[in-house]
């Protein structure tokens, strides 16, 4: 059985195109993360899949069934909303029951499913509490229980962890991943947090401005970013970009920058040709030295962020562009020093 198939999905609000065109196939049981900055159309896309928004054109299939024109409750989905939204005046148990209240599930089966969900999520102690009296983590668990009792073909989650503090988010992430694996339910998880995307997703869809920038596994997205946007969005600290014009010179291809040419490996050049104008290098793939070497780029130390086992040195070039370089704890540099950056070109990307 197939999971979720989205074909040529478009969604406009008046003249504003929220989703330009999207085709996405999520195999059964896969945890798919939709990642993008706010306003990129990811929540709209989820609303379309849930049936909370009508599509402008395109089809959506869930479990092989065309649900494009069905109301939300008929799509065999369960949804977890931002901040793990629950009915504020109902207790945890009543909230969970609400999922089955108007379904065709019999009383015995409903009780079995609720008991099962309560057991899996360990929420027996908060069943009589109202959301206002629960912690953020407890609310999250209740919202999950409310979702899984529906026994749906797909889970749709709209930034459920966004409102939690960092420590709680970190502890809930692996739990959520484990729960999804255990249930084997196809999941779409929307987030703007790249760490959530990288740690949770089997499949990541990076969106920007209503368009899909790249679809791939976390490894593919990180190691082979398809666009400059993806390269800049994924990874922390973010990738550095050296701007210039790529040309095939006598002694091989190079990026002509204001500091002189930077030689580019032939295989990168062959793929992009002369169209490229920026060279992307991750912070861990740049060396810095106090002395100028061939092809190095000058930069002044603007700030140093000490992360304990490593440090991020933020450099400014004369134009004021930021570059981030990851170094060991004993780097010995200080703010204001003049240095030279040497990118490791075997690990570079051209855009």
């Amino acid at each position, binding site marked *: 059985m197939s999971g979720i198939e989205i074909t040529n999905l478009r969604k406009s609000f008046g003249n504003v195109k929220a989703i330009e065109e999207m085709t996405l196939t999520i195999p059964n049981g896969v945890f798919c993360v939709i990642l993008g900055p706010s306003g990129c159309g990811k929540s709209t896309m989820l609303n379309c899949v849930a049936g909370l928004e009508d599509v402008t054109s395109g089809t959506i299939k869930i479990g092989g069934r065309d649900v494009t024109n069905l109301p939300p409750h008929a799509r065999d989905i369960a*949804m977890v909303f*931002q901040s793990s939204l*629950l009915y504020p005046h109902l207790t945890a148990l009543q909230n969970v029951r609400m999922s089955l209240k108007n379904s065709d599930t019999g009383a015995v089966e409903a009780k079995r499913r609720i008991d099962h969900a309560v057991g899996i999520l360990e929420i027996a102690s908060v069943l009589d509490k109202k959301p206002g009296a629960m912690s953020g983590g407890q609310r999250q668990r209740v919202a999950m229980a409310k979702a899984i009792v529906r026994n749906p073909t797909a889970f749709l989650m709209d930034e459920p962890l966004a409102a939690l503090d960092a420590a709680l988010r970190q502890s809930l992430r692996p739990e959520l991943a484990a729960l999804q694996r255990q249930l084997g339910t196809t999941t779409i998880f929307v987030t703007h947090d790249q760490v959530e995307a990288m740690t949770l997703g089997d499949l990541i869809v990076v969106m920007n401005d209503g368009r899909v920038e790249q679809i791939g596994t976390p490894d593919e997205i990180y190691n082979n970013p398809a666009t400059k946007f993806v390269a800049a969005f994924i990874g922390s600290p973010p990738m550095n970009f050296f701007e210039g014009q790529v040309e095939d010179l006598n002694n091989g291809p190079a990026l002509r920058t204001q500091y002189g040419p930077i030689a580019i490996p032939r295989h990168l050049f062959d793929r992009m040709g002369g169209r490229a104008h920026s060279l992307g290098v991750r912070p861990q793939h740049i060396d810095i030295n106090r002395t100028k070497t061939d092809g190095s780029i000058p930069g002044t130390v603007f700030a140093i962020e000490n992360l304990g086992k490593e440090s991020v040195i933020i450099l400014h070039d004369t134009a004021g562009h930021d570059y981030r370089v990851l170094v060991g704890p004993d780097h010995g540099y200080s703010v204001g020093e003049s240095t030279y950056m040497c990118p490791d070109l075997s690990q570079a990307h051209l855009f």
Partner: protein
Amino acid sequence: MASRAEARIQNEAKLALKRIELSNRQFAMLLALPVILFLVMVMAYPMGYAIWLSMQEVSFFGGFRTSFVGIENYREALYSDNFWWSVRVTVQFVSVSVVLAMLIGLGLALLMHRVRRGRALLGTIIILPWSMSLYGAGVMWQYLARGQSGVASSLINRMLGRTTPDTAVEYSLISSEQIVNLLALGNAWNLAPLVAFFLLANLKTIPERLYDLARVDRLNIWQRFLNVTLPPLQYTLFVFTTITLILSMKLLDFIFVMSAGGPGDASATLTFRLFDLAFRQSNYGLSAAISFYLLFLIIGSALALFFFWGRRLEDT
């Protein structure tokens, strides 16, 4: 030596702090003190005078005289059919007023919440009835409801095809058996806008996503209203039920202008009855006694509302 001096200074500082430290409750009392004093000064004399008056027989013949009659006035009221009739009218008037005010208020609030275009204009139109003086409202409603030129006559004549002066009949809502309900409608018309704006403020706090959750849960329109829209309104509904209840019980001017307690005493609420007794029949003692029964009714029903409803809201 130095350390001893230091200790002394510290000790004094501590004492000074202690002297000015107030608990929250004490501070609140302090802030409220001026207004409490003012209220006592303004209220105590008329209240005391009314209590005294309610236990006097007042006569005007041969000069103003009063004689102490104890609880005779209170007893007389309880044995009077007029009094019990007025209690009945008051209960009907207040119940219908409160229910209508809350329902119309809720309806207007939902309307304002849903409307996107022309919201400011709509809000202005809706608040207008509230900004009108009750005396003016009484005049207007009386014009609408009376015979000849009133809406009721016009509608009935129009429906029966009587469009010429010699066939038209006079039908007055003022002199109908519906007068109490009509008064309550006018009162609710005046009170509902305020209710609506406070409810609207509550409606604005409902997260839009909660309606999406209700859709995923397949709640029908009534379940959605009960589980999403209504819960955040409960406290405001309670507060305004109490407020409209009290305002309706002590309402006089609107009734005075619109129906003057009539026809006969069909719409003589307790307020109208005691006004009539005091200022038309000069029966001050009985009137004062009835005013205390009204006060008990107001306090009693407000407490009952709190006991059966408001108290339960506090833990949510």
